[in-house]
């Protein structure tokens, strides 16, 4: 099974989110970078599948040269190959991103070892566009399903499951296919020491790509106004319990 996994380098945001003074992006001077939890799970799922069925996991990212860091993180977890679609660092929209990913998938097929399965996150942590996977699928003419929390292989294809509004749904797809996954599909492992060493030495394939303008243009970012005030402290330790019971009663949840 040849599996491609798409990951995106994004700032790691902690307790608060700080913007650059011009409000154009997240201030990353004090923060590290990571990938979204959905994508961590996509990498883990791909590694587990190839451990079971054989094959290679290729991890792909479109981003600046420093995004190699996220590729190495994935290599440390068991990916065997890494591809950087290198940009000049400017933000890319989902249409152009999907086109560049689809080009790489075709390139791989022409080289004779095309992907059977492409895994992506359901949505990227930063832009939350919810669409790159579907757009890639259309460009390739592959079937696609999103928001998946369970994958199993069937004869000639795969069965993907998710829950929607309390009802479980399954989808049968033929291969090759695009599947976007959500956190919860598995519990990602931590990298092993040998994994880290291997990742450090691994070659990364680099292909330059150039952007195309898109119809959705960011004017600026802002932090939404806080809706709550500082809490009223109703007490300390067990002495607060009578007041807490009174409060629950007042809020109408004791009946």
């Amino acid at each position: 099974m040849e599996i491609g996994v798409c990951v995106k380098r994004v700032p790691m945001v902690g307790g608060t989110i700080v913007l650059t003074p011009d409000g154009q992006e997240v201030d990353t001077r004090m923060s590290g970078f990571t990938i979204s939890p959905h994508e961590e799970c996509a990498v883990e799922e791909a590694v587990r599948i190839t451990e079971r069925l054989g094959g290679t996991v290729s991890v792909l990212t479109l981003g600046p040269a420093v995004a190699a860091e996220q590729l190495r993180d994935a290599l440390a977890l068991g990916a065997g190959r890494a591809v950087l679609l290198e940009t000049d660092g400017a933000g890319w929209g989902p249409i152009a991103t999907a086109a560049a990913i689809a080009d790489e998938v075709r390139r791989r097929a022409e080289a004779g070892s095309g992907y059977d399965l492409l895994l992506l996150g359901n949505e990227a942590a930063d832009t939350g566009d919810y669409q790159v996977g579907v757009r890639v699928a259309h460009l390739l003419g592959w079937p696609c399903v999103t928001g998946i929390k369970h994958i199993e292989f069937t004869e000639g294809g795969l069965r993907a499951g998710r829950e929607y509004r309390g009802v479980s749904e399954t989808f049968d797809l033929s291969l090759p296919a695009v599947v976007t996954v959500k956190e919860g599909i598995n519990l990602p492992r931590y990298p092993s020491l040998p994994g880290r060493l291997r990742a450090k030495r691994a070659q990364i394939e680099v292909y330059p790509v150039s952007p195309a303008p898109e119809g959705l243009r960011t004017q600026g970012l802002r932090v939404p106004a806080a809706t709550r005030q500082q809490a009223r402290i109703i007490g300390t330790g067990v002495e607060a319990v009578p007041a807490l019971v009174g409060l629950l009663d007042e809020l109408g949840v004791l009946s």
Partner: protein
Amino acid sequence: MTVLCLVEHESGVPIEASLRALTAARVLAAGPAPAADPALAGDAAQGGDAAQGGDAALAGDAALAGDAAQGGDAGLAGGPGLAAVVFGAGSLDAEVLGSYGVGVVHAVGPDPDPGYAPLAWARCLHSLMESVGAVAVVAAGTGRGAEVMAHLGAITGLPVAANCVSAEWDGIGVCRLVRQRWGGLLLEDAILEAPVALLTVAAEAVPPAPTPEPVPVEVRVVRPELDEADLAVMAAESAERASGASLATARVVVGGGRGVGGPEGFAPLEELAGLLGGVVGVSRVVTSEGWRPHTMQVGQTGTRITPEVYLACGISGAIQHMAGCSGAKHIIAVNKDPGAPMVSAADYAVIGDLHEVIPALVAALRERGLT
């Protein structure tokens, strides 16, 4: 000329997220009419319902409504009009849609009712979009809404603006919008320039509001011509619903985080949730440690909750956690650390060790006769 809105329903009752989407779509439907294409204007004039569908009063922006009045034929008639697209509409309560300003319901099926096949739904939206000359297509930012709109974006090559909080016209084919980024931690002001504006509406951000002037609803049955390939990926639903009160709809959620200390520490929280008729929700630390399954996670990558009361025990209140619980009506924090962000974000706080406070609370509630 129309604004189309995909409306999801359960047994004929529109889901709340779709009512929110309709509320946001109604602003676009009120105009100003963004296109002056005579062919399209003719279409609008002939389908008189489009005029009734509009609700200029709801634009909430006098300048916008004024623009609409000067904006040519469709504008004079009150904007492009709002139409709903509904799949499997056999049992649909169309009147509710009228109360949200929907003039026309395009009821797809029931023969053949495609069920949920994302690509087939998008193809139907696409053909309706073309036949009515839609200026915008809107869906709720639900799993299905996001998926279908992504397909529609891919089919048409148009951009899709996901998780909008508001959108209004800013000229012909130009939409000025605000949308959520980083799971709602940030807002983005953006311009969407496209012949048809495709957008999803953030599931919790827009309060659903009926229009003060409900309109009569005309239901038009649409029989889609679908390719077999469009139906290749189709949901098979299992009949059984998830049992018990689910996290997303619970009236009371008792939250547990790293402060709970381990998988066994949850017993008192579960007992408390039981007494209050609620459920337990957890932070990501709890799920990534494997103490509880991910289905119980509250937050940006977990479930968004909207209970009456959220009692957050031993949870620091990281921004990604707050993204999932800020829809709670009242938040009560139980935390050892008065400086924890959750204590600042909550309405009420108890400073103390949850291992003492929660069992004592359970005992006190039992004493009051709760079982």
